[in-house]
């Protein structure tokens, strides 16, 4: 399991290769890449600042991946989340999960993202034409997380 919180960009291809190399038992890798958009709630976004809670961030991401591992038969996972100043088109997050078959990998990847969105201590502050603003949590993210509790 690889968990990284960093200001630097990441190379999706290199991360996926590292995840699956020398592992002929892996048959599937499912990956999600989040990208900074230039529009949110109808306003142009020039950039954003990502704040986090050092220590708890890594701990919560590890706990989320452990929960996914307990739930699905997955072999390995990598989670990378960026912090600091980001601009539209920048990659912000990578979740990649390796398993024997696609079903487990798809489910675990989506589960990790849904929990990351609602439990990992990151906060976005956007730059709009009217100035800076903190992004509000969305109830749709809570709903996305909640469906795993009934599944």
């Amino acid at each position, binding site marked *: 399991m690889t968990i990284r919180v960093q200001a630097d960009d990441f190379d999706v291809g290199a991360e996926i290769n590292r995840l699956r190399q020398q592992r002929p038992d892996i048959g599937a890798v499912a990956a999600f890449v989040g990208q900074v958009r230039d529009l949110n709630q109808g306003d142009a976004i020039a950039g954003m600042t990502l704040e986090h809670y050092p220590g708890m961030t890594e701990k919560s991401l590890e706990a989320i991946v452990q929960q996914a591992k307990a739930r699905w038969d997955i072999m390995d996972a990598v989670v990378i989340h960026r912090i600091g100043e980001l601009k539209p088109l920048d990659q912000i997050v990578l979740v990649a999960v390796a398993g024997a078959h696609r079903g487990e990998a798809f489910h675990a990847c989506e589960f990790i993202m849904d929990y990351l*969105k609602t439990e990992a201590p990151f*906060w976005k502050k956007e730059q709009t034409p009217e100035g800076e603003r903190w992004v509000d949590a969305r109830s749709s993210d809570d709903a996305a997380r909640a469906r795993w509790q009934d599944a």
Partner: protein
Amino acid sequence: MIRLLYFARLREALGSVGEELTPQAGLTVEALMQQLAARGGVWAEEFGSGKSLRAAVNQTLAPVKTEIHDGDEVAFFPPVTGG
């Protein structure tokens, strides 16, 4: 002593990244929030007005009934918005 930390919008509203406090016996997250709200002004606004805040004790999300002990790290912050 307990170490208190404030993050994101809350940190800016309070004008503080954190502080140290001596906890009374049996202190809970809820009681600590009431204690902070009793300072009035922006503290009352942030901790007393039912604004949605999350708490973490020793870097784990904590329900309001969680007990706080000497040496703990307690953080307050708005709902998270990463990803």
